[in-house]
């Protein structure tokens, strides 16, 4: 890592954090429940990337296991929430 070490990971992590804040705005102000599910889906995808970046940032790539599990939970949660609301509406 000749090019300044971990600054590149920090920059990408800051961009991911800004995107998560914007997705949170949509999740709070979404007019329909589908907007909220979309925003939460986007946030969990970004959380996966953020965990992977934090593993590199902290020099502990074992965090990638957690990111892997999170990527799987994300899909299951979206399908589960859609099934719940599809039955109610």
């Amino acid at each position: 890592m000749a090019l300044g070490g971990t600054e590149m990971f920090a920059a990408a992590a800051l961009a991911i954090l800004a995107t998560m804040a914007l997705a949170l705005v949509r999740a709070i102000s979404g007019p329909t429940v589908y907007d909220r599910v979309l925003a939460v889906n986007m946030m969990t995808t970004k959380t996966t990337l953020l965990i992977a970046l934090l593993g590199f940032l902290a020099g502990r790539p074992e965090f990638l296991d957690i990111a892997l599990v999170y990527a799987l939970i994300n899909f299951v949660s979206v399908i589960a929430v859609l099934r719940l609301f599809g039955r109610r509406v």
Partner: protein
Amino acid sequence: MEIALDLLSWALLLVGGFFAIAGGIGVVRLPDFYTRLHASGVTDTGAAYFILAGLMIQGGLSIITVKLVLIGFFMFFSNPTSTYSLAAAAHRSGMAPLDGAGGPNKPEPVEKSLAEPIEPIEPTPTKPGGAPPSQP
């Protein structure tokens, strides 16, 4: 060689961050649920794969890269599926996408159009700036 790989990784991470922020702004500012799906898809593909590629270059040939490839593999299948089921659920619940004029674009019910006799197709005059169909 090390410098070149670091520069490539740096560029990929920056492009991924740009896609992430662009998709986030799109999710907040676009007018409609279906257009917001597009903005979310930008972050799911552009941001995720560019950042994962940048991390793979940093990881080198090791178990780290294998795990990153697995994360990308799961994202490759789960994100389009969840986006599709979101759009299908919203469409099934009666949410109408916007038409060109910004109004709701309600599809005609299938039973009504099948019950009517088939009329010869006439060229309809296009009305510029026509009012969108009113929402009941």
